[in-house]
């Protein structure tokens, strides 16, 4: 996995994990989310447009990130999920908790 971070404002961030988001990569992503929130960017959008594959470890990192972001008064939202990611969210019924948005802008504009 390759991870890109963009910081559009002092309180927001976009993280783009590319490739397979499985066990080893999940730890990397969770560490990046923790650091980003600690730096004050507590409204995060995870752009999964180029995430080829998500497993339960990657999903766990997203849930962990959601908890950290909410604890800091922010939120973590998903954008641009593909078929495989959407299927994992639906099979685990986590699409109720981690709502996928069509675009990064939609995710920032939501709720």
């Amino acid at each position, binding site marked *: 996995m390759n991870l890109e971070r963009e910081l559009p404002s002092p309180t927001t961030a976009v993280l783009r994990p590319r490739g397979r988001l499985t066990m080893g990569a999940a730890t990397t992503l969770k560490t990046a989310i923790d650091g980003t929130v600690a730096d004050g960017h507590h409204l995060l959008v995870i752009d999964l447009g180029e995430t080829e594959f998500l497993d339960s470890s990657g999903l*766990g990192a997203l849930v962990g990130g959601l*908890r950290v972001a909410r604890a800091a008064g922010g939120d973590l939202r998903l954008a641009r999920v593909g078929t495989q990611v959407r299927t994992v969210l639906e099979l*685990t*019924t986590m699409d*109720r908790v981690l709502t996928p948005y069509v675009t990064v802008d939609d995710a920032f504009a939501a709720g």
Partner: protein
Amino acid sequence: MPSPRGDTPGVLRIEGCVAPECLDHVQDAIVRLWEGAPQATDEARMMFEIAVVEVVGNVVEHAPKGRGFEATVRLGVEGDAAWAEILDTGPALDIDLDAGLPEDLAESGRGLALARRAAHELTLDRVGDHNLWTVLRRW
């Protein structure tokens, strides 16, 4: 290792699957597996990969520390289905394959429930001094 299906032609085998890096090797092998099964639907390919990655991930995550632990993954196609066998030398496992999903904000505990939902068959047996997982997904 006592593989019930064995290493017939077309079966892909990944040995030494004891660390997270092995997931990439298994996923690369699954891509190669489909070269011999052009009739497999996109949905079956995706569901099979989801289930196998979860089972292999579970084996790797719970691998006993230290030397001596071995795990071998076999992948094959038979009729209208893809199958996987994952054999490991770890201690006997006490796992409830019918366990449901954890609470919404739990950071772990979804893997096997996800595998069971993605596969048509998911089994875990003790064969001699090995654990044998099997995954099957039809198209």
